[in-house]
């Protein structure tokens, strides 16, 4: 639609150059030709691409074709990617074109594993038979264990979300929006896909330069960015590059903090950096998309944790206590949410425990997602994050389960004991430290162990530091691993 109405306005900015709606549409049509000539019927496909205008054209081609597509992180280990493509029932994998030939590369998946592929398709058909809406995006959870979970989103769920985002953040032609996160992140539903739907311009941050504060500052100013949505690490990088307090991004109208708790010292600098912006804390999960929104008063910043705010239109949120009862007054409980944007369930739900449940009190017919976030409701009714009900932490905004990282390390033949702890870090939120005991006679050091992690874990789940020794790890009086002591010893030494 946007190509008809504003063919020559920029849809994207990539490496300083604008890409118009017409040009993006042309590239999407080229990619679609590849799909049509592949003779794969209505089968889902996998996309293997890091962020670029061509990758975005690939996604648009799938959307035009109403074809479901899996969009995993291209940095996952190769065997994990292959397994995900098979589980999603993908007939093949399409990659961004080779810069020299300009041709999209198409790889048919091996048919030796027909049963598994058929099962994937069958699961999908079954899980969506009650819903006439076709699946488009298939995202994945960060999955710090062997295999990320596949989260299929229906066209309707994506439409409802992008409509909300357009209204809430005044997306329209002429509006520039920064896209900080990698293309496979759920955050792109707002900053890329909602922006394009409403005719705005997406200023793409190159993943390889995403941690350079000078580069980020330059993008914001040069391209007149008006909406920024990013994890706290982004704001931390900007404030670090602003030690003399001279930078101002006066053109930004909306600043959205999402994905993790922000350090108060960093938050305190945000009104100065963005003097004309409305500031928000936005809470969501891949499974449900955004759920709660809090508008921060820049003249009266909260001193403690940022409130999570109120449910978005159509969203229900509950606190559920340890006994499984909904908590209506002050206190803590696990946050359950039900949103108009949510997935119906994990695609391969036969492999995962479902986290979608009915209302614990049976007061409505909605399906609620158990977020695993422990939340406090204060006397005034406001909600703040307390922590997790499990072993999950955020590393650079990516949810990581430290127990799963331990499980992977424990499978190394030279390791007899291992404890992974999350150490707070100003920039990353948390960094992981691994304390490992090797088997007698082993000369294992961190070089092969890091390679082992790289082969089995997503990049963000690889511990930043390792300590490998021959001594037993500290344990509590009941014989459990004493992670608190491990963390204490590590920070004392570090």
């Amino acid at each position, binding site marked *: 639609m946007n190509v008809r109405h504003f063919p020559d306005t920029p849809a994207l900015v990539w490496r300083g150059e604008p890409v118009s709606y017409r040009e993006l549409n042309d590239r999407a049509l080229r990619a679609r030709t590849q799909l049509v000539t592949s003779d794969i019927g209505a089968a889902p496909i996998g996309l293997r691409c890091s962020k670029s205008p061509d990758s975005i054209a690939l996604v648009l081609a799938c959307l035009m074709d109403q074809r479901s597509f899996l969009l995993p992180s291209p940095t996952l280990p190769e065997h994990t990617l292959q397994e995900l493509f098979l589980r999603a029932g993908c007939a093949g994998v399409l990659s961004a074109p080779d810069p020299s030939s300009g041709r999209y590369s198409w790889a048919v998946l091996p048919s030796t594993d027909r049963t598994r592929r058929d099962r994937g398709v069958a699961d999908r058909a079954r899980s969506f038979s009650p819903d006439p809406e076709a699946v488009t995006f298939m995202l994945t959870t960060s999955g710090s264990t062997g295999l990320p979970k596949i989260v299929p989103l229906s066209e309707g769920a994506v439409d409802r979300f992008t409509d909300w985002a357009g209204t809430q953040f005044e997306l329209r032609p002429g509006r520039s929006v920064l896209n900080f996160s990698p293309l496979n992140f759920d955050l792109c539903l707002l900053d890329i896909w909602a922006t394009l739907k409403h005719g705005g311009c997406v200023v793409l941050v190159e993943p390889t330069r995403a941690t350079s504060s000078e580069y980020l500052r330059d993008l914001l100013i040069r391209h007149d960015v008006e909406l920024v949505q990013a994890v706290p690490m982004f704001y931390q990088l900007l404030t670090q590059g602003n030690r003399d307090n001279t930078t101002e991004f006066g053109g930004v109208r909306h600043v959205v903090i999402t994905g993790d708790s922000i350090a108060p010292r960093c938050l305190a600098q945000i009104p100065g950096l963005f003097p004309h912006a409305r500031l928000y804390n936005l809470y969501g999960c891949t499974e449900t998309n955004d759920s709660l929104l809090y508008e921060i008063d820049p003249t009266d910043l909260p001193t403690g944790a940022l409130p999570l705010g109120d449910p978005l239109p159509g969203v229900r949120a509950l606190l559920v206590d340890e006994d499984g009862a909904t908590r209506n007054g002050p206190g803590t409980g696990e946050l359950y949410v039900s949103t108009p944007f949510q997935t119906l369930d994990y695609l391969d739900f036969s492999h995962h425990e479902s986290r979608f449940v009915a209302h614990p009190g049976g007061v409505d017919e909605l399906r609620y997602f158990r977020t695993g976030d422990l939340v406090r409701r204060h006397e005034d009714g406001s909600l703040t994050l307390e922590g997790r009900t499990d072993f999950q932490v955020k590393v650079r905004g990516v949810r990581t389960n430290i127990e799963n990282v331990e499980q992977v390390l424990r499978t190394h033949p030279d390791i007899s004991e291992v404890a992974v702890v999350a150490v707070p870090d100003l920039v990353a939120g948390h960094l992981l430290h691994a304390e490992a005991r090797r088997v007698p006679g082993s000369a294992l050091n961190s*070089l092969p162990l*890091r390679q082992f*992690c790289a082969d089995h874990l997503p990049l963000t789940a690889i511990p930043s530091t390792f300590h490998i020794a021959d001594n037993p790890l500290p344990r509590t009086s009941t014989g459990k691993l004493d992670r608190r002591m491990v963390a204490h010893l590590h920070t004392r030494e570090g």
Partner: protein
Amino acid sequence: MNHTRTITTFIVDEFLPDVPAESLAADYDLLSGGVIDSLGLLKVIAWLEDRFDVVVDDIEIEPDNFRTVAAMNAFVQSASRAA
């Protein structure tokens, strides 16, 4: 000037303190080997700039320039010549 030894010592001190410097090959892939991530890469670049008095443009922050000790050495050598 070949800076392989100096660079290796830095990488080992910073990221692999329990690893003997001689066991890190100059062509070992530090990125896909899980040794350096994107924040680590910034640390390496800041050190290279400081230690060898070279300037790394944003354009040059291509991971392939810093994938191995040998690549870093080649980068420093060409950057010094350019200056």
